[in-house]
């Protein structure tokens, strides 16, 4: 191994002397990425996942399946390579290691190998079009900027991150209980949001219209700065909304968000809530009480709790007869806490989404899976970063089995979780589906032959 001169802690240093001082400064650069893709990124797991069981030896396996999946790479100089496709695990792995993309996106499975798309027409039978694609969701905390005061834009902190946790709980429960999906992967997007991949066969085969319907089922928040009331419940709530409210949202709003965001502590903030109440007499009554401020409030109790109770009491005190007030409390809670999804991401099958285990260029954090049953545990400020992982590699035990270098690092936990909670059950189910589909087909052939 040649000892080349290099400017910053390059891979040479890591290979030669694991016990040397860990001079890996924080950051994100191509050298770090090269090591990451070379030793930590789980190529094999991604391949197995994307094959959905077609990489086996069963007669029902579709050997062309993996090769018809689109990947896209964003290279260091912002060059964007679409319609990348690979016919084997090694092709995928080699291309990633060679090109070292700063971002890898996964697209749909097409009717034919994307590399051959130009040979196919736009319409008619022989068309180049998506045939399978996971049902995906993208939740970004910047869409909540109008209801969080601690941060804005790309920032995220422990006060506002719980909004993402709540979103995961609401959507995950609905995907399982309402829609009957089982194979769901939640991933931290690396900076300020979460992604969701629903991988059941039924989900992958949904049409754009059906995806749009699911996205609309989840849609509650409507409107933008030009409309006053973004959440409006003209009638009693649908069972899905009732469950979300009683199991997650109400408690979160009353016990966490009120306090962490100080929703009532200043005039500007309480006015925002008052603008959601379409009744002048109620709002002026409350405003009157609050403008008097400190004198009347109970000093022991937090001002936010106190004012929220006042608001609820005023709304429920018999003014229920007035139209539009009956569900005002719920409307306010939903406006602040209910998940805000990016509709367009979910509706179109050809939408690309960042692959799990990528590293976010701006934060250096790895896009690790999140356990929906334990999502409160995820702290975006302590998610492993690229440089941390490289440091861990350095100081790790060099006698360990080279095949599983990630076991020496914090990435190990994530990969183990990915495999046991998601990949293995998914592949088992794919195998079963394939076998039963195959048996049915054989039976059908037999039936049609017998007279």
């Amino acid at each position, binding site marked *: 191994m040649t000892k080349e001169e290099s400017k910053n802690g390059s891979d040479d240093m890591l290979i030669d002397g694991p016990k040397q001082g860990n001079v890996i400064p924080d950051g994100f650069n191509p050298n770090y990425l090269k090591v990451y893709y070379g030793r930590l990124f789980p190529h094999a797991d991604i391949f197995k996942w994307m094959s959905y069981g077609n990489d086996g030896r069963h007669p029902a396996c579709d050997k062309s399946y993996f090769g018809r999946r689109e990947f896209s790479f964003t290279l260091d100089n*912002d060059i964007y390579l679409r319609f990348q496709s690979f016919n084997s695990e090694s092709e995928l792995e080699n291309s990633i290691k060679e090109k070292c993309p700063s971002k890898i996106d996964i697209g749909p499975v097409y009717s034919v190998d994307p590399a051959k798309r130009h040979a196919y027409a736009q319409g008619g039978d022989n068309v180049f079009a998506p045939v399978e694609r996971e049902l995906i969701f993208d939740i970004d905390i910047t869409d909540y900027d109008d209801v969080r005061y601690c941060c804005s834009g790309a920032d995220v902190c422990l006060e506002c991150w719980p909004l993402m946790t709540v979103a995961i709980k609401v959507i995950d429960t609905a995907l399982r209980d309402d*829609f009957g999906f089982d194979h769901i992967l939640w991933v931290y997007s690396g900076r300020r949001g979460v992604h969701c991949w629903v991988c059941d066969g039924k989900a992958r085969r949904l049409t754009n219209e059906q995806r749009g319907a699911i996205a609309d089922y989840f849609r509650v928040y409507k409107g*933008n700065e*030009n409309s006053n009331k973004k959440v409006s419940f003209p*009638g009693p709530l*649908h069972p899905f909304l009732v469950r979300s409210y009683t199991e997650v949202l109400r408690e979160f709003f009353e016990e966490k968000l009120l306090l962490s965001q100080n929703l009532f502590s200043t005039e500007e903030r309480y006015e925002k809530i008052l603008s959601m109440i379409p009744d002048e007499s109620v709002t002026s009554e409350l405003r009157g009480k609050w403008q008097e401020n400190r004198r009347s409030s109970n000093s022991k109790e937090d001002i936010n709790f106190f004012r929220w109770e006042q608001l609820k009491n005023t709304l429920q005190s018999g003014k229920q007869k007035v139209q539009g007030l009956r569900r005002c409390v719920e409307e306010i809670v939903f406006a602040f806490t209910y998940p805000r999804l990016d509709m367009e991401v979910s509706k179109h099958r050809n939408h690309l989404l960042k692959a799990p285990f990528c590293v976010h260029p701006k934060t250096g954090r790895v896009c690790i899976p999140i356990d929906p049953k334990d999502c409160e545990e995820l702290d975006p400020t302590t998610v492993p970063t690229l440089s941390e992982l490289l440091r861990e590699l350095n100081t790790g035990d060099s006698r360990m089995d080279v095949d599983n270098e990630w076991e020496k690092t914090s990435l190990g936990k994530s990969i183990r979780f990915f495999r046991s909670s998601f990949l293995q059950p998914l592949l088992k189910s794919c195998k079963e589906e394939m076998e039963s589909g195959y048996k049915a087909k054989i039976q059908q052939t037999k039936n049609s032959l017998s007279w």
Partner: protein
Amino acid sequence: MEIVRSQRSRTNTPNDSVSTLPLYRYAPQLEVRLEDFEVFAMDRLRVLKGISDALARGKRPEEMENLVRDLWKANMRHPEASEDVNKDIISHFVLRLVYCRTEDLRKWFLSMETALYRYRFLLGSSEAKRALMEEFDLPCKAISRTEFENAKEKLEQVARSFDQPLPTADAIFYKVPFEEVPELVAGRRVYIHKGHAYVAMHQVVSLVVTQFRSNLSKALILTNRKWTSTIREQERDRLTPIVEALSMSYLGPDYSQTKEFGEISIKDLDQLARSSFPLCMRHLFDKLREDHHLKHGGRMQLGLFLKGVGLRMEDALAFWKAEFSQKVGAERFDKEYAYSIRHNYGKEGKRTDYTPYSCQKIISSTPGVGDHHGCPYRHFSEENLRAALGRMGVGSRAMEDVVDKVRNRHYQLACTLTFEAVHSSSCDAGINHPNQYFSDSHKILQPKVEIVI
């Protein structure tokens, strides 16, 4: 001895044929006179056009049911009542020929025929509905007593959320995979559990309509193939001219080719925005000037409108760049935004020349956080709308009329009234397309045609 009444004798109720729904599975083996070929098709086209107009005006479902009954009665009755069904079937199949030939035509025909089918189904009796459902071979099963009891509370919640009567003990519900009823799922109009939607009898229309739509969509592709490969040539002297004429007659101009008033330049835009843009585009334009940015929906809606208005691609690129570079920088503009402008003009990707959005499309869009597209008459609060109209120069009297139309959800009529107030002239045709607003406005403000040397 009981006299068995002949099944085929029909009572002379006017509603009869409207709810006697054929399946349109196969082209009829009938002899049709050439004149009937054209006349039947035009009569049906009147019905479809009536539906199209009504939908654009935002009519409610109850109003649509009545409208369809009236339209059908006015246009689709044959002098011989027994021939009603044949006219129905023949006209449908003729229009399939007419409307199979391009993607746009297929899309329009599919939407209108599906709407027509939906309302005719709703007008039918429970018995007729049940019979038709069996014909359609739908993947749904009536739920058992036990299943009903278990789901009762949730079913009641759903009913209450839409002000529907609560399901009675003998109510029939169908359990259907949720994929089969996307519209019901989207509107949260059904209880869903473990992938199955619990559909009430009165909602069953959604199932039927989805099937109908899917069948017709496939059929249109096949028809197109047959048309292109054999029929058009074979019928060169007989049916083809009729078919081609029929398709021209009912869809308005789509503003994808800018012909009339030539090109406009960037320096005219500010002034044109003030004088001739409809509110939706003016709002987008103002926001763009203010924020030096627009999100995707806004870029599409405004960008395509400007294309329709006559802005050349090079000018469009310069215009958007001038604005966006103040926010994201010229380099980022070139990298991230220029491509999609070129895409809109058909210079990238699959090179479709995209059509500016009509009012119907804009009204039905769903602006979200940070968006400024969509129809302001629909999405603005009354306060904001009044302020915006004031800035356009709408007087207080006219403003009340506009706001009244908005309250009744007649967004296009509201826009028409705005047009009339701002231009002090009437607009009889009504506004259906932002580019129509612009071209009508332009015509009024620039009556003299400049002679270009």
